[in-house]
């Protein structure tokens, strides 16, 4: 493909379709209560836990930081009667999300290109701030949390879930395992993981009161097996969409993540906090 042929929207569509085949419609990890349930049930359970932690109610104004292609925002508006502003730094993501909301006739979900670590929105203008698996791609974690705290009204709630780092990784170990980490970077982008406690400390430092910090590592572990099964089922289509190298990298990443989950290096966490009234 030449530079002239490159179409960001078409690329975004291909990647989104491939990730949908691999990760399921909700495009995020699953929380498995029994370990036997389908991935769709488990991803729904994670969303349900975020919704419960957010204490959603009709009429609330919500900020979705790292809104992707807008599917969660549209669903939150439809199912819970909230209004949502979704923000992302991806112009294509904004186009897709806006088109999605228009196509579904959802007026309560709007999307703007903004940086979650410097969102430029007015102080105290939202009742809820929500970051579902977006924080690991924002290097300035402190700015992300403080910006969410700033735009919350008194009594508002901030909820976040993401991959977490569960222990210090000494430099020499990082060096020895650099190829594994490089595979993860290639598959998922230049992510940085922090401990769940770090998120909680940032929230407290931003004036929020943390009321939930759940380590969901055990419950999310079966996710990788399900993603592998999805790859096995859709390998030819995924390879067509992503190419052989990216597909192989994704497959390698699954074994690495599974091992990191099991040896206590990485895991998954959910945190919620309230802005004092």
């Amino acid at each position, binding site marked *: 493909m030449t530079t002239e042929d490159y179409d960001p929207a078409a690329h975004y569509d291909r990647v989104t379709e491939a990730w949908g085949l691999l990760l399921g419609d909700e495009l995020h990890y699953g929380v498995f209560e029994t370990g036997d349930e389908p991935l769709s049930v488990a991803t729904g359970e994670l969303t349900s836990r975020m919704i419960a932690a957010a204490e959603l109610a009709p009429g609330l104004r919500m900020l979705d930081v790292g809104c992707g292609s807008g599917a969660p925002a549209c669903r939150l508006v439809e199912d819970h009667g909230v209004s949502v502003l979704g923000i992302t730094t991806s112009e294509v993501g904004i186009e897709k999300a806006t088109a999605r909301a228009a196509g579904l006739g959802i007026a309560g979900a709007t999307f703007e290109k903004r940086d979650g670590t410097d969102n430029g929105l007015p102080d105290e203008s939202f009742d809820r701030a929500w970051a579902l698996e977006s924080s690991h791609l924002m290097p300035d974690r402190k700015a992300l949390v403080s910006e969410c705290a700033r735009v919350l009204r008194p009594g508002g709630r901030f909820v976040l879930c993401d991959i977490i780092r569960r222990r210090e990784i000494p*430099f*020499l170990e*990082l*060096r020895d395992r*650099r190829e594994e*980490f*490089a595979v993860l*970077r290639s598959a998922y982008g*230049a992510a*940085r993981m922090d401990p769940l406690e770090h998120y909680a400390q940032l929230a407290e430092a931003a004036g929020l009161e943390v009321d939930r910090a759940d380590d969901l590592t055990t419950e999310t572990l079966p996710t990788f097996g399900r993603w592998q099964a999805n790859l096995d089922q859709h390998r030819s289509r995924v390879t067509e969409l992503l190419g052989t190298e990216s597909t192989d990298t994704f497959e390698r990443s699954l074994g690495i993540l599974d091992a990191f989950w099991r040896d206590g290096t990485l895991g998954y966490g959910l945190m919620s906090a309230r802005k004092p009234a």
Partner: protein
Amino acid sequence: METRRTLAEQSIRKFLVRANKDADAGVETSLFADGLGLDSLETAELSALLEDDLGTDPFSVGELPQTIAEILDFYEDPAAVSS
């Protein structure tokens, strides 16, 4: 004959090209946030490359150089040269 300092600088420049960083950065440029912006994984990759090319590197012996110049200085240390 090329000195170890020269070889180290060649390795660093090679790494910076491969890592899509500023390969022409001055030797006083910070390796981290305000300079080349290396993250921990990139630092580990640089460490491994230096060890592959020169037999030792400052990071793996517990030093934490902040600039390219500090890496180069390491290779002028007789202890590093003899390792």
